[in-house]
């Protein structure tokens, strides 16, 4: 791969949704099926413009629901098409059933999720409740920090999803409004560079009923049955294969991220986790998405004061980068896990569950606390992040945790 020079790339002012639409266009998607929902709508609007102006050769299906949108993508993918959709919040919840069907059918659909709170009460602003619900749905999950990363991640997502050893659907989460509607300078690769990077969709081979290897698609020349009734004698093995594909995905995600760094010059950690000033850190926060930008600013402020603060941003929440997390946190003494969603009645938020669980095997056993923040788009300010680091410093000093799980930035 040839490194794209500064000259070839151009910086355009785009919001997150526009960056996603542009990336999908450059990836020469065959079928896009989508339904409008705030704050994802700009993606479908921009893409419609591309289609109506003849800037992209794509079948664009304006479905009557998100349930049908994902179904269309799944079925089109089964025919061999490259497919894309986008949704948010209630739309993702309506897709829930088909999310599992898509991963179970091993259909490499790529989806952007403009992360938004779930009703009720109805709220159009950002939190991660919508995609966290789907963490067990068999989809690869990437959470991005800014619009540039949204653009880059959509391009990588097609390579990841369609990789023959993975063949799993992939969702890219971008924070609603904070990213979806905020203008940024996004460095855009030339169309040909992107097309060359994603290439043509490859179809894995599977054994048909006669033991012959045939492409895994609905092909009249090699008819196969997709989505059959699968009972106690085989279902379990098929689910095990999905888990296996997820495990393999971890390394492939890193490789594709490296390959992309070669053409774009941009990296997000190792593609799975993105560490910030963590090498010698004693206090660390962990978060997903756009909040990382605010946290980095605070980390810099604290570092200037001599506080050994750092940040670990999880980029791929599925597959969970267990080894990366263990390595990144091996010298850290106190960790604050930030969750932008709530597991009602559970013991902390979903990211906290995972991180504390991983650290149980670490041997070093740092203090780990949880902060639920920013539900329904509540701003996560620098002041609040500073408060978290102050708490961590106190925990480190006293060795005592007053409250393992706290809500931050709200009236209590």
């Amino acid at each position, binding site marked *: 791969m040839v490194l794209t020079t500064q000259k070839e790339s151009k910086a355009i002012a785009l919001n997150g949704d526009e960056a996603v639409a542009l990336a999908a266009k450059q990836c020469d998607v065959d079928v896009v099926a989508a339904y409008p929902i705030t704050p994802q709508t700009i993606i479908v609007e921009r893409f419609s413009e591309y289609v109506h102006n003849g800037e992209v050769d794509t079948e664009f299906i304006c479905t009557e*629901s998100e*349930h*049908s949108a994902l179904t269309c993508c799944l079925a089109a993918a089964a025919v061999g098409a490259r497919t894309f959709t986008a949704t948010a919040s209630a739309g993702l919840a309506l897709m829930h059933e088909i999310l599992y069907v898509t991963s179970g059918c091993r259909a490499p659909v790529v989806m952007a999720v403009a992360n938004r709170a779930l009703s009720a009460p109805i709220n159009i602003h950002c939190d991660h409740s919508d995609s966290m619900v789907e963490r067990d749905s068999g989809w690869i999950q990437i959470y991005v920090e800014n619009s540039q990363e949204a653009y880059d991640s959509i391009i990588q997502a097609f390579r990841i999803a369609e990789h023959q050893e993975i063949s799993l659907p992939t969702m890219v989460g971008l924070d609603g409004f904070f990213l979806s509607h905020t203008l940024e300078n996004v460095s855009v690769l030339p169309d040909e560079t992107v097309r060359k990077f994603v290439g043509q969709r490859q179809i894995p081979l599977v054994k048909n009923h006669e033991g012959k290897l045939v492409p895994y698609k609905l092909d009249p020349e090699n008819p196969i049955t997709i989505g059959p009734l699968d009972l106690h004698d085989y279902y379990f093995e098929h689910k095990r294969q999905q888990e296996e594909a997820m495990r393999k995905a971890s390394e492939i995600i890193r490789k594709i991220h490296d390959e992309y760094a070669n053409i774009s010059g941009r990296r997000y950690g190792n593609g799975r986790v993105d560490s910030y000033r963590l090498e010698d850190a004693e206090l660390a926060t962990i978060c997903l998405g756009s909040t990382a930008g605010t946290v980095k600013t605070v980390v810099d402020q604290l570092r200037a004061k001599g506080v050994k603060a750092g940040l670990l941003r999880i980029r791929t929440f599925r597959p969970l980068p267990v080894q990366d997390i263990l390595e990144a946190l091996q010298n850290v003494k106190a960790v604050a896990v930030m969750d932008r969603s709530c597991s009602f009645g559970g013991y902390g938020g979903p990211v906290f569950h995972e991180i504390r669980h991983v650290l149980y095997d670490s041997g070093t056993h740092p203090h780990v606390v949880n902060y639920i923040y920013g539900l329904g788009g509540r701003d996560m300010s620098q002041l609040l992040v500073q408060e978290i680091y102050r708490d961590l410093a106190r925990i480190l000093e006293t060795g005592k945790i007053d409250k393992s799980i706290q809500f931050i930035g709200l009236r209590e």
Partner: protein
Amino acid sequence: MILEWKFTAKEIAEKPELFMSGHRACAGCAPATVHRLILKAVRGPTIATNSTGCMEVTSTIYPFTAWKIPWIHTAFENVAANASGIEAALKILKRKGKLKHEHVDVIALAGDGGTFDIGIQALSGAVERGHDFLYVLYDNEAYMNTGIQRSGGTPFGAWTTTSPAGKKIPGKPQLKKPIADIMVAHEMPYVATASPAYWIDLLKKARKGLEVEGPAFLHVIAPCPRGWRSDPSKSIEISRLAVETCVFPLWEAIDGEYNLSAPSKVIALRPERKKAMEEYLKTQGRFRHLFTPEFKHIIGKIQEVVDRRWQKLLKKCGMA
């Protein structure tokens, strides 16, 4: 334009079976017969998709399949969206020169639950968007796969496990939803009803549905001996009685123009040939409670509904 498809019974018999024996459908299952017939009408490379239901379950128990053509099932309420996605993919892959075939037909098959009730949204959307596919509704008038629960397609007065023949409420209190008329109201190019008893008519209609450009909807009556509490050897006979009593008349609507098909036209021209509903009802245990003195009057009501709907249809066909 719809071309008239000429064929002989011999030609049909010689056509390869694409829906194979060995599936696990019950004895006397008319939906299985309907599937076999529909696949006899294909004109070339075809992809089929089923909604969740008896026919999906009985024809694809992994690692076996009854399907000799590419086939996909995803969920219950979305078979029309499956067809939409398949059709869109075929279109774009052809445009991009990535499809080996000149044309591939798409058939979506679903039962009454997957069509009248949970699947109507996806169906309505797909038809509004004008995807080119044939939708086959095999109507056995209840949720048979889950054990005979009433659906929007269950007729008035019928017993099901969720519309039991109780002392107070004898069977389903509501009428069957006029689904095919609802589809005609979508201004789609082709809508027809069919019965496996008139199999040549069914085959012709299926072929027309495939040949027409845009969406086509074929509503097929398909008795379920388990659910209808009927003799498994009588499924075809009952499918014929459904037409002869006018509870399930056969017609086509091409671009919204209704026309009676021959078996029903004969009755329209010679009304004395119209059989009484009682003859149809007595073949099925699901209506047994209506033959008690207490509920006998309901048969009269059923006859009224059938007559009213038949008259309405005759008007639409310009035969009233």
